[in-house]
């Protein structure tokens, strides 16, 4: 027995509640430095985005007509824009939007990919044919064009629809991979064993198929967060997506990049926060993947 094994055993004795997967994965997640850091940073970002505005007298719509294009100072912590907007306030507002849009779109798209792929692969026959047909259809539609055409619909408060649309155009390729892997997983003995035990199919998908694809799905979700934020960014850059006076990372970066050379504070704070967010998401993703995978060295 290895040392870590002994530790585990001792812990299990103390832990009287049934050690189900959820607990074990959570424990392993928080046991890894990566997971802890990533989680802490993400939590901080959310805190900053939603609680930060309370500490500044400026809101993102306010304009200080006494300070245009000023560098960071005591009144304007991150400086001001050409319009006199407070950079700190707009950045936080943008972060609220981008965090929510990015994470939600990624989760929705990965979840969609997982469900459609797993059902198509597990049930085969007509279910498979229909789901694959829908997948292929969405795959050939030019996503960017449609998003651009539909973007006028995403007026104020319509960001939920925006998230759904973003997600809708991100899931197809993953879904095809998931379908293929499900078909091969279905032949595995433990899935057969569950079937012969009388476990209903939907439950087999939830308890056996998806967890065994977790590495793929987590990596996919992690990548999708960046992809969603960036797609939103580029859509906003072209003037679709989030519309003024509302802001997002995308619109801010687009505006900031024009003035970045002589007024770096208009660009670098936003860009820095975007990078930190993506990094934190990646850390969380890696830690989660290791926590799910019993083969990984989870206890460092």
């Amino acid at each position, binding site marked *: 027995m290895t040392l870590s*094994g002994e530790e585990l055993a001792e*812990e299990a004795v103390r832990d009287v509640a049934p050690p189900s997967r959820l607990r074990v994965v959570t424990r392993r997640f928080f046991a890894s430095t990566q997971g802890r850091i990533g989680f802490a940073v993400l939590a901080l970002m959310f805190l900053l985005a939603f609680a930060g505005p309370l500490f500044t007298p400026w809101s993102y719509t306010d304009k200080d007509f006494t300070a245009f294009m000023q560098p960071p100072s005591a009144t304007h912590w991150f400086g001001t824009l050409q319009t006199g907007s407070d950079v700190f306030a707009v950045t936080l507002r943008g972060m609220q939007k981008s965090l929510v849009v990015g994470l939600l779109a990624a989760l929705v798209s990965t979840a969609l990919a997982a469900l459609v792929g797993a059902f198509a692969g597990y049930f085969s026959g007509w279910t498979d044919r229909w789901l694959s047909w829908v997948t292929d259809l969405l795959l050939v539609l030019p996503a960017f064009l449609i998003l651009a055409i539909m973007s006028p619909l995403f007026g104020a408060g319509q960001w939920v629809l925006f998230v759904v649309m973003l997600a809708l155009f991100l899931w197809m390729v993953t879904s095809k991979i998931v379908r293929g892997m499900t078909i091969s997983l279905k032949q595995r003995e433990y899935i057969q064993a*569950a079937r012969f*035990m009388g476990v209903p199919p939907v439950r087999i998908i939830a308890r056996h198929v998806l967890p065994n694809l977790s590495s793929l799905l987590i990596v996919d979700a992690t990548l999708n967060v960046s992809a969603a934020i960036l797609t939103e960014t580029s859509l906003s850059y072209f003037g679709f997506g989030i519309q003024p006076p509302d802001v997002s990372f995308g619109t801010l970066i687009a505006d900031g990049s024009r003035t970045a050379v002589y007024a770096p504070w208009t660009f670098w704070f936003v860009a820095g926060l975007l990078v930190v967010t993506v990094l934190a998401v990646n850390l969380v993703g890696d830690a989660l993947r290791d926590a799910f995978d019993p083969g990984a060295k989870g206890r460092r």
Partner: protein
Amino acid sequence: MTPVLQVTDLTVSFGDVRAVRGVSLEVSRGEVLGVVGESGSGKSVTAAAVMGLLPPGARVGGSVRLHGKELLGAPERELTALRGKTVSMVFQDPLSALTPVYRVGDQIAEAVRVHRRVGKEAAAVRAVELLDLVGIPRPGERAAAFPHEFSGGMRQRVMIAMAIANDPDVIICDEPTTALDVTIQAQVLEVLKKAQRETGAAIVLITHDLGVVAGFADRVLVMYAGRPVEVGSVDDIFYRPRMPYTVGLLASLPRIDRGERQPLVPIEGNPPAPGALPPGCPFAPRCPLHVEACDEGEPPLFEVGPGQRAACIRWEEVRPWAPGQRTGDETGLWPAGRHAGEEARPWAAGRHAGEAGRARARGRHEAGARPLRTVLEVENLVKEYPLMRGAVFKHRVGTVHAVAGVSFDLREGETLGLVGESGSGKTTTLMQILELAAPQEGRVTVLGRDTARLGRADSTAIRRDMQVVFQDPLASLDPRMTVHDIVAEPLRAHGLPASGRRVAELLTLVGLDPSHAARYPQDFSGGQRQRVAIARALALEPRLLVLDEPVSALDVSIRAGVINLLASLKARLGLSYLFVAHDLAVVRHIADRVAVMHLGKIAEIGQVDAVYDAPAHPYTQSLLSAIPVPDPARERTRTRILLEGDLPSPADPPSGCRFRTRCPKFRSELTDEEREACVTVEPEVLPVGADQGAACHYAERRDVVRPGGIVR
């Protein structure tokens, strides 16, 4: 006699892991040395080191001398010249050792031409000669075939032909028959013997199968944890072992020649990981004779008799295990004592041994007195698969008759062993039962319900009472689930509370430590994993347990523990087992009745002792006679009924009796008129004894395991 191959103090390490720790062995001309060990004992690494075939990361020390010439550190060019000429090798998996894109004849000719200056023509002629020597029918034609067109047994013959192509002095065989069926194994061993006679070569036979060694080897070397622990002549090792590990191995083997049902004596615990060896004797944590002195240093090989050496400081006290001796018996040294320490070690495998013995005495019944209630009935089950060809346009070119009318029943509290070689249809039969769907033809009745008329709710109810244990626990346990979740799964699936207590109870029942419930399957050894699978199967307190080769993926010393566990559980919980296996010895040990399948049909069925002691069907006879017994004296006097050729394709079974193309009786004993019936009429299973039936027109009971003639 000077040894041809002499290995002294060979060590091999991969990084920090010392896989081989000081192996010394020698073989002389015409001698067969058996190297026995479990997986991870370093036996295959030893062979690879001798051949110079280790991966680049390995560090090798010691010396390997061939005809007195040092091989370790010799330039690659010289080694290549020796390999295949003076030393050659036969691998376990011949398909990976043959190049798939070249014709078999060309590959053999190539092997000849690499080492000898002969013309193409001459080499081709020699290749055909060699194929003929190893018993390939129509060698001239078959030389032009590609490796994938050969069956496993035939490929192994080709490998042997290549190995002897240049009259080598040493042939190293690494598990040459492990991947083969018993009847094919018997053929291949026969070919190996013949090859040895022809070439006079020394053979190093590496295997885990003590039966094969008993029949084939002159001397035996037992390896454990990377070291030889006992060396001696085959008789000394089998009859006068001096190392507790050897004694334990022999005692833990189920045997086809033992009717009286003793519980097997498993070796407790698991072999040590090569990276984490105990300080003293590597066997100490599992040894019943362990004393403090054992931990002081690794015991050297003591000279314990003429030509016999054993690595145990208490060798003088070690006695062979006698059949009939019981666990805890104070008279014999093995496996008495050592029970105080058992509770300290959580995964003691032997906990159930004593119980199993008592259980057997109760649970077993005599022929003719079968229990009344039927839990499973299969009538005339037929399953055919279409045989498809073509990459673009798939079209049907034939039908595979996987199961062609099989009938048997299983009563409550009984164990039915379903045995057969690969391709016999036993797995298909099993799957048909497990699917709980209407069979293609025939009828399957599980727990009184006909599967053709089952609603969804009914089949869920039946699944609750019928559980399954698969062959490879690593494959049948979801690697991403904790043991707790695995064992709790059936409970949850059927809406029962899955409390930690219940899971702990189940784990204790199968001899595992409940505190390990938070672990994943990969943290357990093979035997423990199979126990987890059994715990899962028992969670719902089923009435019928379907066991698909439950022990064949396990190491010999672990196997016995699982078999004993199954036996004791059956008696305690009143289970019925459908036990599918290819290992007839295991089946004899655990089953009450046995059904022998051949090519989708039942050849013989009946009470287990009746069938094993006096099989009536020629197939059963040859099957039983092909199984090696770990008893050298008996092996020497036994005559094998060798089958010719391979199993016919189930897509194109012979007319009449499906066994007739291989039947020794048909070939040599019957007259032409008698043969007529075999060719035209398909035999039905007809009774030949109280509880014994055989599907042969000329069934005749005879004892083939023990030497001695026909039974009445």
